[in-house]
C-alpha cells in the first residue's frame, strides 16, 4: 500500500477550505466582565440574561480545565481569543435575502446550503449561522402557522423571554462543566426551537455553523423544546475554512422533551481537521444533553464526526419520565492527527426507560478515537433496559482506538448489556472484494459503509447522502 495513487488520496486536502473576505465587527482579544456585559449589550438582551451570563462567568473563573479525557492539545490561553465577532450589517440587519451581503450568499452557495427556493426544493428551513450572528432565516411563515418557533437564539431572548428564562440552563446549568460555563458567559448566538403541544414539525429544521473570523471562539447555544406530544427533527451540519491556528469551539445544546414528545437531533460535523501533520484544526468541545421530562418522551442523537482536530463531546439523555427512550448513534472518524473522545451518558431515572447506544469508531493515520460512555440505572428505574454496542475499526498501525464504558446499575429489575469489538479492517474481506473486480478504495468504502450502516440509517435522507460522501473523502487511501 505505498503507491502514489493512495498517497494522493491520503493527502486529500480539506475541500471546503476558503476564507470569506467581509468586514467583521470584532471585540478586542480577551475576556473579563466588561466583555460579557458588552456581548449582552450588543444583543440588546434583557437584564435576566446579563445576570445569568455574569453568574456563569464568575463561576467559570473558579473552575479548572478538565484533563481526564484521552485527547492532548497545547494549553489554551483564553485571554488571546476574541469572544465576539459578527458580520457588519447595514442599519439593523437584513430584512430579506436581497439585503444579505452577496459575499455571504456566495459562501453559502459554495457550501451548497439550500436557502430560499433551493431550501424549498430541499424541504429544509435553514437558520444559517455565519460566525456568530444569524443572518437569514427561511420558512418562518410556514412554521409560524403551526405555532412552531424557530429563530436565532438572540431573537428568542427578546421575543420569547419567558420561554428562554424557563428552559435556558435547565438541562445544562451554567455550573455544569468548564466549557459549558464559558459558553454560558459568552455565547454569541445559536438556534431556538419551540414545538407546541401536539404539533408535528412537517420539515427537517436545520442550521449550518461556520467558523470564519480568525481567532474567534465560536460559542453556539441551542435550545430545543418539544412540548407535550410534539415532534421535531433537527439537523446540524458544519464546515469551516482552512487556517493554521487552532480555533476553539465550545457549544452547548439543550433539548427538552415533555410528555409524549420526540426530538431527533442529527449532526454531521466536518470542521477543519488540521493538515496531514496535525497543524491547525478546530478544537470542538461540546456539551449536548437532552432531558426526557415527561412520560414516553423520546430523544435521539445521531452524529457523524469526521472533522475537527479534537472532538470532545458526549450527547447525553436524562431519562426522567417513565417509559422514556434515549438513543445515541455515532460514527466518529479520525485520520492524520485527529483526536476524538466521544460517547454518551444515559441516565435512567424513570420506570421502564430504554436506551440504545451504537457507536462506530474509525481510526486511520495517527488518529486516536475513544468511546467514553456512562450507563447509569438509578434505584428508581425499575425495568430499565439498555443495549450498547461500540465497535472500532483500525486502519493503520499508528492509529489508536479506545473504549471506556462505565456501567452503574442500582436496580435489580434492570437489564444492561454492553458489547464492544476492536479489529483491523479484514484482509480477507478486502481480498475477496478485490478478487471480484473492485479496486482497493472501493472495497474499503464498501466495508466502512457496511460498518457504519446502523448509524447512517438513523440519519435523515439529506444527511445520509452527505455523510457517506464525507466518509469516503475522509478515508480515501487510508488503509495500509
Amino acid at each position: 500500500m505505498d503507491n502514489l495513487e493512495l498517497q494522493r488520496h491520503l493527502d486529500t486536502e480539506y475541500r471546503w477550505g476558503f476564507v470569506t473576505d467581509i468586514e467583521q465587527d470584532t471585540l478586542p482579544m480577551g475576556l473579563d466582565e466588561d466583555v460579557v456585559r458588552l456581548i449582552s449589550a450588543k444583543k440588546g438582551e434583557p437584564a435576566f440574561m446579563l445576570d445569568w451570563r455574569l453568574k456563569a462567568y464568575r463561576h467559570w473563573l473558579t473552575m479548572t480545565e478538565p484533563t481526564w479525557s484521552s485527547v492532548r492539545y497545547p494549553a489554551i490561553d483564553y485571554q488571546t481569543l476574541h469572544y465576539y465577532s459578527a458580520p457588519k450589517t447595514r442599519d439593523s440587519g437584513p430584512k430579506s435575502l436581497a439585503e444579505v451581503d452577496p459575499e455571504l450568499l456566495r459562501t453559502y452557495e459554495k457550501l451548497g446550503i439550500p436557502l430560499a427556493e433551493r431550501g424549498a426544493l430541499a424541504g429544509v428551513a435553514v437558520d444559517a449561522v455565519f460566525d456568530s450572528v444569524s443572518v437569514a432565516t427561511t420558512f418562518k411563515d410556514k412554521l409560524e402557522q403551526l405555532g412552531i418557533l424557530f429563530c436565532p437564539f438572540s431573537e428568542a431572548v427578546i421575543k420569547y423571554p419567558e420561554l428562554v428564562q424557563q428552559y435556558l440552563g435547565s438541562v445544562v446549568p451554567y455550573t455544569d462543566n468548564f466549557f459549558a460555563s464559558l459558553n454560558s458567559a459568552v455565547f454569541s448566538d445559536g438556534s431556538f426551537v419551540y414545538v407546541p403541544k401536539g404539533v408535528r414539525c412537517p420539515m427537517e429544521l436545520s442550521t449550518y455553523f461556520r467558523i470564519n473570523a480568525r481567532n474567534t471562539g465560536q460559542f453556539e447555544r441551542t435550545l430545543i423544546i418539544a412540548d407535550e406530544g410534539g415532534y421535531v427533527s433537527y439537523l446540524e451540519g458544519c464546515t469551516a475554512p482552512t487556517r493554521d491556528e487552532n480555533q476553539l469551539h465550545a457549544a452547548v445544546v439543550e433539548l427538552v422533551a415533555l410528555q409524549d414528545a420526540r426530538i431527533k437531533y442529527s449532526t454531521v460535523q466536518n470542521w477543519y481537521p488540521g493538515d496531514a501533520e496535525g497543524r491547525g484544526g478546530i478544537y470542538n468541545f461540546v456539551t449536548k444533553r437532552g432531558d426526557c421530562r415527561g412520560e414516553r418522551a423520546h430523544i435521539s442523537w445521531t452524529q457523524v464526526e469526521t472533522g475537527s482536530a479534537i472532538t470532545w463531546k458526549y450527547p447525553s439523555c436524562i431519562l426522567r419520565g417513565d417509559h422514556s427512550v434515549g438513543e445515541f448513534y455515532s460514527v466518529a472518524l479520525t485520520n492524520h492527527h485527529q483526536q476524538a473522545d466521544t460517547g454518551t451518558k444515559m441516565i435512567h431515572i424513570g420506570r421502564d426507560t430504554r436506551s440504545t447506544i451504537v457507536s462506530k469508531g474509525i481510526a486511520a493515520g495517527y488518529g486516536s478515537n475513544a468511546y467514553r460512555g456512562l450507563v447509569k440505572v438509578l434505584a428508581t428505574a425499575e425495568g430499565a433496559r439498555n443495549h450498547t454496542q461500540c465497535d472500532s475499526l483500525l486502519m493503520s498501525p499508528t492509529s489508536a482506538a479506545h473504549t471506556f464504558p462505565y456501567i452503574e446499575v442500582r436496580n435489580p429489575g434492570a437489564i444492561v448489556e454492553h458489547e464492544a469489538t476492536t479489529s483491523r479492517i479484514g484482509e480477507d474481506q478486502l481480498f475477496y472484494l478485490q478478487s471480484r473486480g473492485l479496486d482497493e478504495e472501493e472495497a474499503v468504502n464498501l466495508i466502512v459503509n457496511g460498518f457504519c450502516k446502523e448509524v447512517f440509517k438513523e440519519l435523515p435522507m439529506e444527511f445520509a447522502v452527505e455523510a457517506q460522501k464525507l466518509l469516503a473523502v475522509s478515508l480515501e487511501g487510508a488503509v495500509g
Partner: protein
Amino acid sequence: MTANTPFIEALRRIEVPGWLASERGAALDRFLATGMPSARLEDWKHTSLAALERRVWHSSTSVAGEAVCPDIASYPGHALVFQNGQLHCHGIYLANQIAGTLLDLANTQAVHQYLGQVADDTALANLNLALWQDGAHVYVPAGDHITLPIFTLFGAAEAEAMLYPRTLAVLEHGAEAILVEHFLGQTGQPYWQNAVTEIVLEDGAHLTHLKVIEEGAAATHTSLTAVRLGRDSEYRALHIGLDGALARHEIRVHMAGPGATTRIDAFDLADGHRHADLHLRINHRAPSGTSRVTYRGLAKGRGRAVFDGHVVVDRAAPKIDARQSCRGLLLSPQAEIDAMPRLEIYADDVKCGHGASIGNLDREALFYLQSRGIDLALARQLLMQGFANEALGLLDHTHLRNWLMPRLIAAMARRTLMEPTP
C-alpha cells in the same frame, strides 16, 4: 494531597525494618508523597478508603497466642501459614521435600533481584514494600513441575492491626506450579490486610494462581497481584472474593514476552454491606499474546460489586487476541454493580472485544425449575451457584475443587439483609 490524618502522622514516625532499609525508606517516602488513593482518582472512583484513614492502626506485634494454627491437614498440598503477618507454622513444607522451594521470604537473600521489581508503583504497593514483615517465597527451578498445590495462608486475628503480607513467586524457564493464596479472617473486629504478590514467569513457565479472600466481617483487604510473563509463558488466575467488609484486589499483568497467555477468572460475592472491587489491567507489550477474562459479580443485600477490566495493547504488540466477559447479577434494590470493561488499543492488527451485562436471575429459568417441583428458594440458590460456576472453569484440580466448593456454597447460602422474600 496528603492530609495530616493520624494515620499519616503515625507513618511519618515509623521506623522501617532494618533489612532492605534503603528500598523501604524510599517506598515510604513515595507513599507519603502521594498519600492514600483518594476517590478523586479515576481508578478509585467507585471505592473509598476514607474510613481507613480515620482509624489509628498499629503494626502487628506478635503472633497472637490464642489463634490456633488452622487445620493444615485440610489443605491438599504444601502449606505455609502466616498469622497476623508473621510466619506461624507450616505443613508439609521444607525446601528439600519438594522439587522447588517454599521459603520464608524474610530469610531469603536471593530475592533482591525481583523483590519490588514487578509490582507497580502504586501507593498501596509502596506502603507494603515499606512495611512488610514476613511473606512467602515460591521458587521453582527451570523445568520442574510441582503438581501438588502450594498454599499460603494469611490469617488475621488481631483487632486494629495493619498487616502487610508479601509473596514472591519465581518460576524459571519451563517450570510449572499451582499457588493458592488464602486470606482468612479469624476476628469480627476491624483490621487491614494490604497484600502484594509478585509473580515472575520466565519463558515457557506455567502458573495457576488461586486467590481466595475470606477476611473478617469488619476487615479491609487491599491487594496487588503483579505478574510479569516471559515468552510463551502462561498465567491462569482464579480470584474468589467471599468475605470482608471491603476488598479491593488489583491484578496487573505485564505481557512482556511474545506468545504469552493470560487467563483470569473471577467471582466476587457482595452481600450484606460488603464492597467487592476487582481491578484488572492487562498490558500487552509483546506480539501474539492472548488474554481471556471472565468476571462474575453477584450483589445482594446492600452489597456493591465493582469490576474494572482494562486491556492495553501497546503499539509494539500486534497479533493480540483479547477477550473479556463480564456479567453481574443484581439481586436486591439496595445493591449496586459497577462495570468498566475498558479497551485501550494502540496497534491495528488486533482482535479485541468485551461483553458486559447486568441483570437479575432469569425469570424463565426460575419458572422452569419450579415447574419441575423445585421450590423458589432452592431454584434461586441453584441459579446463583450456576452463575458462580461460570467463573470456575479453571478449577480442574479435583482436590482444589473439593477444598473450595464448600466454602463457596456456604458463602452463597449466607442469609443477608434485604434479601427479597419470594
